């Protein structure tokens, strides 16, 4: 037996067998070790203890009376069984000995701020922690993962805690799991699949109500960051940001808190969320704050950051982020997407600036230029953002204007939008069909030619004037300047064999509408179609 004093906690190492033959002697040795130490708590290290009989257990009981905080650690499975059978595991803290796992030569399949994830065999991965005292962290993560699973989140729960070198690791069973980051990096054509599954997962967790007090509010993190940086912003903008963040309604629904593509995996055909240590509650908009930074924010100064961290380039990352917002908000209206993104960015920059300042203070690597860039963008953003709250229902597009990517696939989106507006004014069927025709011709023209070979947005606006009731449909795009009215009309009297295929669109538009006006202004093609009802 040997002891190691550590503050007012004394660790006593037990070894061999403790039975009726040597129990008394063992007890004396233990007491001798504690004498004069003024120990407040005692830990028995049972790593080398092979057997303990009831005589030995009585020694532990007496010790527990004198030191109520008594803990037994590193207990081997045979001894653990005895302690469990006799009820000792319920009377005091008994920690099993940890299996030792080596990760030498194992494939690293993930790496986060707190450690690495290794594949130790075909079905199992171990998540290691940099922090040597990681047990409480592991415990926390297991608890929240278990809570998440019970509440209906598909996730992996570690089934064992092991020793890895000087620290600890938790072991998960993850069959053939591939993160979305790896899928996007290797198979960019699976973008739509990933967006769809990812959005479904976000919606799922954001709809889960968490019992009170089980998870921390994410809002506190954001408010903390804003509090720390608000005085670095000019003109009361810091105060404005803080007030807006405080005004975001509290929610008791779940947020993952670090939901980027390395934390969502495809295991077989099942999609799982992992890395649950940041699980929180709060308004869903908070979820998008760390997401923005992972996909866009960190890379705004150095586009290679995302490549280094997620394994795909900044362009893919931006598209994934954009398409996820569109799917989550269930809109193709770029104005709605941008408005939401701006709310998120206000908080995301605050987080980045705060982190950068803290890193600088702690002497860790920090890029003042990046901080200046984020600060500049936040200052530019704040005056035009007046609320950080959002409600998908009330954020519906400004009812008479739609901005979306000009592609043929979006045609029905545009026609639905036009029809919804025309139905409000009881437009006669025939006029509605004629305006559909004009809208299709113009929109398809923009889709085919305005930005070719690239893609770009088009905005459609509908206004209704009185006396007589007149509908004005305006198209705007930032493509190459093009006046469709300059095109000469096709010969509509030519026989079929001499007719050119195509070229009728603009002609038809002019025929079905009363007036078509083109102008090029502020870098935009603006085409106004008017029709009196």
């Amino acid at each position, binding site marked *: 037996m040997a002891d190691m004093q550590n503050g007012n906690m004394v660790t006593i190492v037990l070894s061999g067998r403790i039975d009726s033959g040597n129990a008394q002697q063992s007890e004396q040795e233990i007491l001798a070790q504690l004498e004069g130490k003024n120990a407040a708590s005692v830990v028995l290290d049972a790593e080398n203890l092979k057997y303990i009989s009831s005589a030995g257990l009585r020694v532990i009981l007496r010790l527990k009376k004198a030191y109520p905080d008594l803990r037994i650690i590193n207990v081997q499975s045979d001894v653990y069984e005895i302690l469990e059978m006799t009820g000792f595991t319920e009377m005091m803290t008994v920690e099993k000995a940890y299996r030792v796992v080596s990760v030498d030569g194992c494939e690293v399949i993930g790496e986060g701020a707190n450690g690495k994830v290794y594949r130790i065999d075909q079905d199992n991965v171990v998540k290691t922690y940099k922090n040597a005292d990681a047990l409480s962290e592991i415990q926390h993560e297991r608890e929240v993962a278990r809570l998440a699973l019970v509440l209906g989140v598909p996730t992996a729960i570690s089934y064992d805690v092991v020793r890895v070198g000087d620290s600890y690791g938790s072991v998960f069973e993850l069959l053939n799991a591939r993160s979305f980051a790896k899928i996007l990096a290797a198979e960019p054509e699976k973008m739509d699949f990933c967006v769809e599954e990812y959005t479904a997962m976000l919606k799922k967790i954001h709809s889960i109500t968490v019992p009170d007090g089980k998870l921390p509010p994410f809002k506190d993190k954001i408010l903390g960051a804003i509090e720390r940086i608000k005085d670095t912003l000019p003109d009361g903008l810091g105060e404005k940001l803080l007030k807006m963040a405080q005004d975001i309604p509290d929610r008791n629904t779940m947020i993952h808190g670090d939901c980027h593509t390395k934390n969502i995996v495809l295991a077989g055909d099942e999609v799982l969320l992992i890395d649950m240590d940041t699980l929180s509650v709060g308004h869903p908009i908070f979820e998008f704050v760390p997401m923005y930074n992972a996909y866009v924010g960190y890379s705004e100064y150095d586009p290679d950051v995302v490549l280094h961290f997620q394994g795909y380039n900044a362009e893919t990352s931006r598209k994934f982020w954009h398409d996820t917002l569109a799917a989550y908000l269930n809109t193709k209206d770029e104005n709605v997407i941008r408005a939401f993104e701006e709310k998120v960015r206000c908080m995301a920059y605050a987080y980045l600036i705060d982190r950068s300042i803290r890193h600088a203070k702690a002497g860790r690597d920090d890029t003042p230029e990046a901080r200046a860039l984020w600060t500049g963008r936040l200052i530019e953003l704040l005056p035009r953002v007046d609320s950080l709250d959002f409600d998908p229902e009330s954020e519906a597009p400004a009812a008479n204007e739609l901005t979306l990517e000009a592609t*043929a*696939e979006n*045609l*029905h989106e545009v*026609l639905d939008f036009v029809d919804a507006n025309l139905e409000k004014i009881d437009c006669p*069927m*025939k006029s509605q*069909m*004629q305006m*559909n*025709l004009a809208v*299709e*011709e113009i929109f*398809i023209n923009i889709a085919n030619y305005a930005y070719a070979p690239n893609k770009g947005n088009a905005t459609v606006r509908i206004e209704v004037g009185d006396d007589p009731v007149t509908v004005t449909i305006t198209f705007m795009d930032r493509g190459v300047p093009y006046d469709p009215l300059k095109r000469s009309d096709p010969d*509509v*009297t*030519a*026989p*079929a*064999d001499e*007719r050119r*295929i*195509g070229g*009728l*669109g603009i*002609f*038809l538009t002019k*025929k*079905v509408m009363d007036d078509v006006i083109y102008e090029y202004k502020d870098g935009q093609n603006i085409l106004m179609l008017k029709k009196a009802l």
Partner: protein
Amino acid sequence: MLQIHKTTENAKTTLVPEGRLDTLTAPELESAIEASLDGTQELVLDLEKLEYISSAGLRVLLIAQKKMSKQGEMKLIHVSDTIMEIFEVTGFTDILTIQ
């Protein structure tokens, strides 16, 4: 958005497009016509259930007209007033055989 019903009777093929004939659906009618050309001397397009036609749809009709004039004839039946008006302004009433 567009459904196409087809009946064939000797050398006469009838296609009934139902719904909207626009940029996105016109290729469907185009391939349905393409698939019907072989051995067809009379192609009938019954437009009774057609709600809407855009220039993309007109384009398909023009292509079909050109092809059928080489091997027989093409007829349009049950054309609604609104669609007839489109045919009129575009001069299609002079090109197509409308009954």
